[in-house]
């Protein structure tokens, strides 16, 4: 049985890693000590929106976890308005992470935009498993590329060609065996075309993050729905019914 922690975590660091993209560091020792690549934390602010918001753990070091985000709505805007010392309630680690126990010599990480989020931990865990790491990272333009990509090989791609390969990460990536991917659901659908066996971290709305609300339904090719927060958020690409998975999400709480 995994252990879950609920902790009031003070903001201890904030740094920019791309245009409008920020890393926030929180002191959350138990989560930092136990989180695996691909797992997430569910973050709530006292005066914020009612529901928590899920974020992949970006890094975990010492007593600190980091998440990476942009302001896309009320919740993320409020998080970015936090000052050092302000406290966020963190619930985690949640979900099943990437599976690096499969026999392989190398791993290819494929990330689009904010899909960088689970990758630094994936690099850590892959190295610990003795794998050669290639990280293919893409964004719309050069200034939207995350500056903290890492790995034995790093390949960058931009839609407008302003840096690296001109085109999508899926087109830019070399042939690969073990593939871990994260990014917009549309990108993941393309990943599943090329690598049906890729492990992909999907995004859905989440009510609870803990498996009790059934709000985070992921439609499966085999029929029925899984819970992204519990059976996921990492899936074999071929298992997800990409047609039925919403690609545009908005909680749209206001006032």
């Amino acid at each position: 049985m995994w252990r879950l922690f609920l902790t009031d975590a003070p903001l201890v660091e904030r740094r920019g890693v791309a245009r409008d993209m920020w890393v926030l560091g929180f002191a959350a020792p138990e989560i930092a000590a136990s989180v695996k690549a691909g797992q997430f934390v569910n973050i709530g602010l006292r005066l914020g929106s009612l529901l928590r918001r899920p974020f992949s753990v970006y890094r975990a070091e010492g007593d600190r976890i980091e998440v990476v985000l942009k302001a896309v709505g009320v919740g993320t805007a409020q998080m970015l308005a936090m000052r050092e010392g302000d406290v966020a309630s963190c619930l985690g680690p949640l979900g099943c992470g990437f599976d690096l126990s499969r026999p392989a010599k190398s791993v290819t990480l494929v990330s689009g935009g904010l899909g960088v989020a689970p990758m630094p931990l994936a690099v850590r865990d892959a190295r610990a498993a003795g794998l050669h790491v290639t990280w293919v990272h893409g964004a719309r333009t050069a200034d939207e590329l995350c500056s903290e990509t890492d790995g034995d090989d790093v390949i960058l791609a931009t839609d407008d060609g302003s840096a690296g390969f001109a085109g999508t990460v899926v087109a830019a990536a070399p042939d690969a065996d073990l593939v871990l991917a994260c990014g917009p659901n549309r990108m993941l659908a393309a990943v599943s075309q090329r690598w049906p066996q890729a492990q992909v971290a999907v995004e859905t709305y989440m009510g609870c993050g803990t498996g009790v609300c059934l709000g985070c339904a992921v439609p499966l090719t085999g029929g029925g729905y899984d819970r992204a927060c519990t059976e996921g958020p990492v899936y074999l690409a071929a298992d997800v019914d990409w047609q039925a998975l919403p690609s545009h999400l908005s909680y749209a709480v206001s006032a």
Partner: protein
Amino acid sequence: MTSDLSVEVGGLELRGPVLAASGTFGYGTEVPLLERRALGAMVSKGIFLKPRAGTAPPRIAETPSGMLNAIGLQGPGVDGLIRDYAPKWAAWDFPVLVNINGESAAEYGELSARLDGVPGVAGFEINISCPNVEQGGMYFGNDPRAAASVTEAVRRRTKLPVWVKLTPMVSDIGIIARAVEAAGADALSAVNTFVGMSMDLNAYQPRLSFRTGGLSGPAIRPLAVHLAHQAARAVDIPVIGVGGIMRAEDALEFLVAGCRAVQVGTATFVNPNAIAEVHDGIAAFMAAKGFASLSELPRYLPRD
């Protein structure tokens, strides 16, 4: 001083007045963190006779102080429930009621008959917010005759406690409350979610794939307190207040408004320890006021 928070509710002796609301606690097996010591009882996620896949995503949307959900009663059906969950419940130190659902009165009756006597099943909560397929899809919950017929169908097939979960989407909740009391209900849960809708301004469509969803959370609390109060004034059986309880003060509003116990739903999503915190807060309030037991809490229940 320590106050006695135990209560008798519709045929069950509960160690405390704070219950887990259906659909917000899964089958009670999901989360290791959830504090169980303070749980008066758990109502399971609603089930049908047959397994159900549920609705397509998106299934939830947040609204000011609330959330809409359209889960579509995804669940394993009665066989899965008996196989996978009831055996675990049998070992727990609080009762588990099964929230039952059907498309006809006969289906509700059969479901309760199948579950009657299964170890771990302590009683039933009838969800009457379901469309009555035989009667052209009208909801059981806003027709006193249909609500009573479902209650009777279940009452005839089981000796276990039968609670009825009322829908708020009615002109006069007292009429429904009296009808299901007369049909043999042991207690009422008031209330289920309110039908709401939220539009996506990019797609020009509802945010939820099911178009509408049920509104829960603090936004509905004043409405739920009123309806629970109206129900409590209409009947002699106990009423369990549900809707928007986040902390002890909110639960106390329902108790003072005439409820015997309360259920906590959406709050558990936000704070997995919400139930324990509500329970402890009620205990602290009672102690501060010098009430030895819940029966001493003043209730506001004018009978005019």
